């Protein structure tokens, strides 16, 4: 009698210690909710910023993107908000950054995967990690107070040397100060090197050992092996890494705001001051009101749309490249 009474009791005790069925359901819904938070935040960013920027979009229409004049407080007439010169500044500084950062990053990634002696690999990774750990505002501070003044003679020298060459000379025009597109690009290059390096390195490390050994066995030198086995395999992934770097460079705000010069300017001259979309927002947001604020938020909308687009494309490219890699190993 006592036995039959006991069994259900102990079973229920066991079941309780295992957790309740309700707990399972609540827990799975709760984790799903936190996962969905990411989608919710991205959606909310789009909705709230577009709504808040609407007065500026409404006033300017498509001219918001095609107009090069940005005049929030004109002496007479209506304020004009044209993002074109800032979009130009964003594009040109990011391109300069890629020009410098991509070869260096690919080089470091090759060093880490193919070349480095075992005892140098750790320190090299640490250098990249530290470079990524330095806050961007510190690079900005260093850029404005140390790099910009120090680069003036270099820029001047380049201008004297190449300024007279017909087409090329327009890129190396007169130097007014060290705060210009070029300095912004250089600082950005330092800042995006870690991310481009780490993704490129991951892609390089998925190249099958057999392919590399085959190239070497056929008598290829190390460089011929890299060109013949590593590069063709990882081209897609490297493109993705470059695009991620581009996304970072376009969105970087503080360092650029400090070193780009703060002028509304479209010029082929790399040594001229300009401004970027992200930098304008942080420089002028404090003093803005009404439509001016809406226009700055509008710049944010454009920036958000462009970075999301680039990131989605880049992630897709990287994923596809990695999936193909795994397939070829198996």
């Amino acid at each position, binding site marked *: 009698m006592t036995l039959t009474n006991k069994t259900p009791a102990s079973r229920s005790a066991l079941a309780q210690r295992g957790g309740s069925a309700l707990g399972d359901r609540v827990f799975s819904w709760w984790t799903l909710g936190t996962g969905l*938070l990411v989608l919710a935040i*991205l959606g909310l*960013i789009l909705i709230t*910023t577009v709504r808040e920027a609407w007065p500026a979009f409404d006033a300017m229409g498509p001219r918001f993107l095609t107009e090069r004049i940005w005049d929030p407080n004109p002496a007479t007439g209506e304020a004009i908000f044209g993002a074109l010169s800032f979009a130009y500044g964003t594009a040109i500084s990011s391109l300069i950054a890629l020009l410098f950062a991509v070869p260096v990053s690919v080089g470091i990634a*090759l060093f880490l995967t193919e070349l480095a002696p075992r005892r140098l690999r750790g320190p090299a990774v640490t250098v990249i990690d530290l470079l990524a750990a330095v806050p961007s505002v510190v690079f900005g501070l260093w850029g404005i107070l140390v790099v910009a003044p120090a680069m003036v003679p270099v820029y001047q020298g380049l201008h004297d040397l190449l300024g007279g060459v017909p087409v090329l000379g327009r890129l190396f025009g007169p130097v007014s100060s060290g705060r210009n597109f070029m300095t912004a690009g250089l600082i950005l290059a*330092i800042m995006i090197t870690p991310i481009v390096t780490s993704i490129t390195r991951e892609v390089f490390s998925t190249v099958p050992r057999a392919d590399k050994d085959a190239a070497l066995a056929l008598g290829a030198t190390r460089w011929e092996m890299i060109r013949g086995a590593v590069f063709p395999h990882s081209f897609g992934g490297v493109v993705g890494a470059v695009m991620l770097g581009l996304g970072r460079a376009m*969105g970087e705000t503080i360092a650029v705001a400090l070193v780009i010069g703060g002028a509304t300017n479209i010029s082929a001259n790399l040594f001229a001051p300009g401004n970027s979309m992200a930098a304008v927002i942080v420089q002028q947001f404090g003093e803005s009101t009404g439509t001016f604020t809406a226009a700055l938020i509008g710049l944010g909308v454009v920036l958000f749309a462009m970075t999301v687009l680039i990131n989605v494309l880049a*992630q897709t490219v990287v994923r596809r490249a990695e999936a193909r890699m795994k397939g070829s190993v198996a």
Partner: protein
Amino acid sequence: MTVTAPPATRPAAGGPDLTRAALSGRRRFTNHLATAAIWAAVLLAVIPLALVTYTVISKGGGVMSLSFLTEDIPNSYRRVGGGMAPAIVGTLLITGAAALMAIPLGVFGAIYLNEYGKQRPLARVIRLMADVMTGVPSIVMGLFVYISWVLLVGQQTGFAGALALACLMLPVVIRSSEEMLRLVPEELRQASMALGARKWKTTLTVVLPAAISGITSGSLLAVARAAGETAPIIIVTGIVFSPNWNLFDGSNTALPAQIFRNASTSFPAAQDRAWGAALTLIVIVLGFTIIARFISSRFAIKER
């Protein structure tokens, strides 16, 4: 008498010469050139790091003192002296609050991705979007929090800064925690289920503890990155000159915002304070990074 073979000479008659010396000059040259270029790339990355570190330590070290860490910020850029105490307080409070919000949410998000969602379409979309969210510029996150929180409560607060930093940390925490959960051996889950534990209990008492060191170090790295974020702080937290311990009332400030403000001026006194603040910030960020590295190397699950 057997004929002794002549001493072996290479190359064997008729065989091709496979030694390095046989490479054509052009191929050898290209190989050396490429090797040199790769070494140069590594040096190019070391130079800016060394220069930044050197400048921050030498210029910041000159300003650093106990009073710099404990005094209020002068309300005039011109004035010499003063300190960064309000910014240090702000950085620690704002980053701490952001971590308290982002880390638990991020870990649960990671649990969804690795324990429930796996390769389902929804989980893949969330994974992709978390990666995309990592690339959203911090200034956009600042604008978002300004519109949806600062305009709502009617004032710039430290908490608004914490919200913005939490949004920036969330995707990083999700993705790094997911990687760590993936390393937990499947046998642990099966053993726990076989003993009668339900999935939520298995996850919370077996899987999570097994991965906790990796999750902690990944989260600390996210915190370190967030502590250096500047743009959202400038837009949503305003500015104060003496410490504000209340996150929910009144403006606040943080070290990165102070570096930015002081660096943009042409007054040497303000620039000195910027260097001092930069040194303080780097010490804080590096502190987090080193603790994270230590935890991950000391307590990591061995990858199988």
